[in-house]
């Protein structure tokens, strides 16, 4: 059997890539299509990609029935705050974990990994009681605190990897030039870590933006609820759903993440390539 020629192989690669991209885009495009379909088209046995009779009724109904803008604002406040606080705390911690190898750092890394395995339901009741004592139930601050704590382990793990990719020679050079630890961290390491910090912040943002269960349990009043919680108000018992308005609201809920990715993906991929040519 002969190997495919270079051109054929490349065409095959592009084809595979295209198929993968279509696969990735399918749920989003279907959501978009559903959001613009009238109720009768939702029940069609032969659904079409492009609605025969596109309508904005689903969006109208979604906004009429639920406080989507308020919920989106709450989600944005919680997710942005959680992301900023998480990277602010995680960056120096990750530096220590990556640079100071020892039993304590190894144990800390192990604990960080293990903590990711805790199911939500295991921690929610103690967490609820702690937050209640702090008067942080039904408070976005309480939710932000939870999101920071929840995303910290993975953020730490992720950032520690980025720190290890920064050559120690640069820090030694800074030390020779008279820079202290803090100055080295701020002026030398942090700029090189920028792509990692952005990627970690993005991870913390997405985690908080999509999170449902903590928000459901901790926030009581409608004006405090976040978008994922409000989206479930379009669902009934036994999986029955108000599909059109749900799709419209879910489509709107995906937009901030998409916009964010569109703005910073160049930065992230740029950083990754920089790391790749290290040597």
């Amino acid at each position, binding site marked *: 059997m002969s190997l495919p020629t270079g051109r054929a192989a490349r065409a095959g690669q592009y084809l595979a890539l295209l198929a993968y991209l279509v696969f990735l885009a399918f749920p989003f495009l279907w959501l978009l299509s559903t959001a613009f379909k009238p*109720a009768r088209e939702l029940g*069609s046995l032969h659904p079409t990609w492009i609605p025969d009779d596109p309508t904005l009724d689903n969006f109208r109904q979604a906004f009429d029935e639920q406080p989507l803008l308020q919920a989106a604002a709450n989600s944005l406040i919680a997710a942005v705050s959680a992301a900023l606080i998480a990277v602010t705390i995680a960056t120096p911690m990750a530096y220590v974990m990556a640079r100071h190898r020892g039993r304590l750092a190894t144990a800390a890394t192990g604990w960080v990994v293990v903590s990711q395995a805790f199911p939500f339901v295991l921690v929610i009741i103690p967490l609820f009681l702690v937050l209640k004592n702090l008067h942080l*139930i039904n408070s976005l601050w309480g939710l932000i605190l939870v999101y920071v704590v929840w995303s910290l382990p993975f953020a730490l793990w992720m950032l520690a990897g980025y720190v290890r990719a920064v050559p120690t020679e640069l820090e030694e050079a800074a030390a020779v030039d008279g820079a202290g630890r803090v100055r080295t961290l701020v002026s030398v390491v942090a700029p090189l870590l920028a792509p990692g910090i952005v990627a970690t912040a993005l991870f913390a943002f997405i985690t908080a933006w999509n999170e449902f269960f903590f928000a459901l349990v901790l926030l009581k009043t409608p004006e405090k*609820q976040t978008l994922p919680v409000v989206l479930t108000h379009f669902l*009934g018992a036994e*999986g029955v759903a108000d*599909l059109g308005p749900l799709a419209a609201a879910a489509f709107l809920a995906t937009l901030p993440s998409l916009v964010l990715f569109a703005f910073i993906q160049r930065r992230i991929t740029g950083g990754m390539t920089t790391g790749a040519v290290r040597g």
Partner: protein
Amino acid sequence: MPALARRMAAAATALALLLTGCSSTDDGRDADGTIRLRFQSLAWQKESVDANKQLVREWNAAHPDVQVEYVQGSWDNVHDQLLTSFEGGEAPDIIHDASDDLADFAYGGYLTDLRSLLPDRLKADIPEQSWRTTTFDGGIYGVPFLQEPRVLIANTKLLKASGARIPTPERPWSWAEFREVSKTLTENGRYGVAWPLREPVSVTLNLGLSGGGQLFHRDPDGKAELRFEAGDQVVTGTIRDQVNSDRSAARTALGMGGSDTLPGFFGGRYAMVPLGFAYRQQIVEQAPEGFAWTVLPAPAGPGGPAQGVSPQTLSVAEDSPYKKDAVAFIDFLLRPPNMVRLARGDWMLPTGTTALAHPSLHTAEHGWATGTALAKHLRPAPAQAVRGYPEWKDKVATPALQEYYSGAIDTAELRRRLVDDGNRVLARYQR
């Protein structure tokens, strides 16, 4: 005090104020003495949410000293959400849920025993079999107010063309007759029926009552025991035969939820779909122009047209300091005219006999009259109040029934798994 220390102290004070200012620790009463009650509703359809909110507004206007705050809940994860709220002492005063979710809360002491608080009018208006769905260990822990029977939604044109007898609530099809009609309706890529059985347990148990089965039996000590008897084989056997022998039921539908079958129903691929009564709302909304459909009673067997239900309920949290006021609000919400509004909003049946007699629930339009006529045959779901049922359902019954209906295992194996494995699960909860 040095400047840095002063700044830190000020920051700490500001933080403390910020944290303490984020919520209140009130006992539900304002400074002027007004009682504030929180009512967490799981209503989700627009008409239903509107009806609930309107009723809360009417109550608040008439009761300035007892104000109710409407809190929108969600059926998704409601059990975990409530459990956390109970444990943390932050539960709403008035709780909307389903009766099959109450057992753990009732036995856990989180809900108020309503026996001494319920007004006579409400007690008398709701039939005894409905009260049984919320009675645990002798106490009443919720007011059952909405319920839905399972019905057959049929394509009118296909049904008429088949020449089959049209069943009525007084003369429903027998399970054997239903099987024959399904066969008649099956032709050229069209199935007589689609059984959406992604969650097969409650359908099997609830419809199983009509076959004379009940699966869960209580011994004199009150302990639950599983037995799979002849009556339990009527519904399970019919479904299995329809899928595997007659080929009159679509095999692909076995993995579907109720909503998933609707496109196939509208497209003429399935002539009938067994669904909950409330699905009519989706059908009205999504059916193509001119599509004619009708609501038929579920088939009856040796057990008659009986079937099990788990009604929606309203309960009062044990921690609520204003239980009498909370029950007064429930009584207001469930006055017959209001119960009718809630039932119509949710496309369900009211449990109250006065509300059920309302003329608007006896019209032929959208099959209301058929559903209303079935109300007297509704019984508590067989597994109601059986501790360990959720684990049995998820770990034993769901996979066993799915395999049985698809033809992967036979009746003896189904019995072994439901009963032998099942009783081992229940034993752990009943020591």
